[in-house]
């Protein structure tokens, strides 16, 4: 299983190509908000850029907070989203410790699904998919 990481954000030039690719290809929108990776400057452009994206928590606080099962734990970290189950309560976004979940005006949550489609659009290789170990036996043990 792989997760999206942002190991070289110090190279970021703030072009937003990753965000726009996510919006276009994953969420079928034109936006830099309803995306799984949002780029922001901290304290103005003179200080460089940072990415707001899912850090692939396991267990994920957003999953624990979700009352309907719209968010479930993704193997390797992060969430699997079942949009049809979402009641737009916003609890997931409230619980995310790194502000990685964006709620649109109607309260629909948008989060990174670790698909990696944004990566090829970064001109400076800031992003990377990283393989993570999936310890399936632990999950099984928990049920025993």
């Amino acid at each position: 299983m792989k997760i999206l990481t942002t190991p070289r954000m110090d190279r970021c030039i703030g072009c937003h190509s990753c965000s726009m690719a996510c919006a276009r290809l994953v969420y079928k929108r034109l936006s830099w908000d309803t995306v799984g990776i949002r780029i922001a400057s901290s304290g103005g452009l003179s200080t460089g850029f940072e990415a707001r994206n899912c850090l692939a928590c396991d267990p994920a606080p957003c999953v624990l907070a979700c009352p309907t099962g719209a968010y479930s734990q993704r193997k390797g970290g992060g969430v699997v989203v079942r949009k049809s189950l979402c009641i737009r309560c916003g609890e997931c976004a409230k619980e995310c410790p790194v502000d990685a979940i964006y709620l649109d005006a109607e309260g629909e949550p948008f989060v990174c699904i670790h698909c990696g489609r944004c990566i090829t659009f970064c001109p400076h290789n800031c992003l990377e998919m990283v393989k993570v170990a999936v310890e399936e036996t632990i999950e099984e043990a928990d049920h025993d």
Partner: protein
Amino acid sequence: MIRDYFRVLVVDLSTGRGSVMSIFEGRDTFAGGSGLAVHLFNKYAHFDKPWNDHEQPLIFSIGPLTGYFPLMSKTVCAFKSPYHDQYAESHAGGRSALALRFADIDALVITGKAKRPSCLVIGSRTLELKEVHYLWGMNVYATGKVLRQMFKGTGHRSILRIGPAGENGSAMAGINVDSYRHFGRLGGGTVMGSKNLKGIVILGDGIFPLTESKEYPKLFQEVYKQLTDTDMMSKYHNLGTPANVVLLNDLKALPIRNLQKTSDPEIQGITGEKFAADALLRNAACAGCPVGCIHIGFIRERFKGEHRYLYRQMSYDHEPIFAAGSMLGVTNYSEVLSLIDVTEKMGLDVMSACVALAWATEAIEKGILSEKETIVPLRFGEAKIYGEALNHLAYGANDFYRLLTQGTMKAAEHYGGKEFACVLGQEMAGYATGEVFFTSQALGLRHSHLDAAGYSYDQKPKGKTVSDAVNFLIRDEQERVFLTSLVACLFARSVYTKELLSQCLSSVGYQSLADNIDSVSSNIQKLRWKTRIETGFDPKKVSIPKRFTEITTWKGNIDQDFLKSLQQEYAQWISEFWKED
């Protein structure tokens, strides 16, 4: 948002209220950007009233492809100019274009005058005029810092603001966009100042569904690949435009010391290579552009003993380096950056301001001016003194600076020295390539080196006729005006061919524009010239100062007959073209 009309937010600063207008006329004939700006100028401006009449509009517009394709990342700003009281356009990037797109408007029109210094905040669900008297007098950087704290939307907003130059009526005051980009030329900053408008915050918080077309994401991918695979990345990202400094110097086409020279070995201290090696801190990009042509340099200054330093960052390009460097005889990169920093803080257009000071320096050398006027002893190469003079220019420190800041030629008409004022419609850009460029800037609609590639035509083999050159300027302007109506960065012009633009427009649903690029381009070109002329421009009265005929380039002396004929024929075309049906 794809729609068959223009969605325009019109804000009246005198009431703090606005209305969202749906303008159905023009979507298929003026496209957006430059075309929309001039269309709106005709709708909202008062041609018979001066630029500073409160009813005059300040317009910002984007185009049908803004945000939909890479490098469709610029905004057009239009206004009646304090520089010549005629129609003017200035273009900038930063985040302004995408922020306007996501604010869900094709254009913002600002009329009226705020009762007190104010900041306008707009977004897809926001309209607020906030009184900010405490920011008046503050420099551009400090203003940006406070505005960033005051308003939400970090990362997905654009902050436009002015400095002291715009507050003090300078016709050389620009509008700073997101610290490193500018609506620099022709005094847009003073239009804001005259409206008591210190800043504009554009929140890009709208979200749009994308077209169902499968063609669009596929085409995006192809365009993106072309733009990032070609030599553009290298040309604009590597050394960037400062690569021109050494190329032009080798060609004997770099304006040096008020264009007294066109080549000098001393410029080795300010070449693109020198900046990249010793001053380049990092690159940045306009939102929506993977090229990242913005070069940010840094300087550190020791302000106290015991190794107490401060550091500053500022963007640099060929034009600021020519203006604050070679034109003023400053050949140390660090000193050039210091001067750029002063113009940034003051909110002055660096090209206009430094070319004006170059003229004043030569006027002192010739005894036309003295320190009585200039306050400080201007001398080529003396960066520290120029830093002080730029402050005097921004604040209008005395009668001399108050006149000079209205335009170099206005000061030259009063004090003398018109023959060596490096003015081609406005203060010259950094190319002394010859007759075609001089004609292009002097007569171009924006008096910009970007109106048409005259500097490139000058470098083609000799033997071309006057008609060849004029036809080139006309055709090139027409192609560029379509790009600036979409609104593309002109760095992408080699990739965005007419055929590709047609495909792009078609893929997102603008079929009529896709099918009629030639006629739409011609419409826009015509309306822009009509508007310029009806606001007072007479192309036949433009004169090119003697200095431009005295230089020697790699081609030898300037061909004065050729220059004169070019000027006459191009002026004749401009005078007639806009009247055609």
